[in-house]
């Protein structure tokens, strides 16, 4: 069966996000009262699998996220 998967990888709370800081400050320079801007990584793909939960969890642990610095979440929906 085929699934549509989205994965979001975030820096753990409290870790400095230099890219987010620069983008946040650019928005403030444009006049917006932006604070604490973060830049998570977003992945989307289709997956042919009988065990999508297990495989996506494994992909996150093996490659997409680094457990030292990241948390992750994902959603899995059947492709109609």
């Amino acid at each position, binding site marked *: 069966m085929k699934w549509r998967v989205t994965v979001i990888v975030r820096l753990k709370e409290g*870790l*400095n996000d*230099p890219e987010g*800081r*620069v983008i946040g400050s650019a928005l403030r320079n444009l006049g917006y009262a932006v604070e604490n801007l973060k830049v998570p990584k977003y992945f989307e793909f289709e997956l042919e699998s009988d065990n999508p939960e297990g495989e996506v969890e494994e992909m996150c642990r093996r490659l*997409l996220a*680094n457990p*030292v*610095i990241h948390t992750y979440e994902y959603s899995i929906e059947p492709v109609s």
Partner: protein
Amino acid sequence: MVRFAVVVFPGTNCDFETERAIRKAGAEAERVWYKANLRDFDGVVLPGGFSYADYLRAGVIAARQEIMEEVKEFAREGRPVLGICNGFQVLTEAGLLPGALRPNRVPRFLCRWVHLRVEDAETPFTALYEPGEVVRMPIAHAEGNYYLDDPSKVRIVFQYSDGNGNVTEEANPNGSVLNIAAIANERGNVLGTMPHPERASDRFLGSEDGLRLFRSMVKWARG
């Protein structure tokens, strides 16, 4: 004569200098494409550069290549494994060293000389240094900000310092926790360093301080 493999991934760019520095330190060195095998070598060096263009995270895609299983075998057997800059990033992503290398605190690529204090002169890579000695080597990285939840558990080898060996916030170029510039595994046979010893291996480059790292490694590998 002992032989070191200098592993080349797509995007590696410090392989020639590293090979040259190892030869200058008195061993054989050979650049090895990452699809090759590491049989017949006594040690392995993962040089600097931008493996797989640093996509996803610096070093992570190289860390998932098959050759790293052999590198892990080297580490398990207690043979020398050295990772320089991108090589350090590969070693952390492969789980051979603890922690992770994050983008620099200042959002830019840093390329300059730094002072380092030798914290641990008892690893096979630092035996020819004096503990507490201050040396000079260049850094060249965008992701050298070392992070670990509990850095008290890590074996720190070099710390960023000022010219007098004071480990200060101002001397920290990238935001690394505890000014960490290089670490080793518990046994000491795996070393990761953000500063480039191969770029400090000849007087005409501005410093020979890095050459002693290779000399220490070669001397130890000879037994």
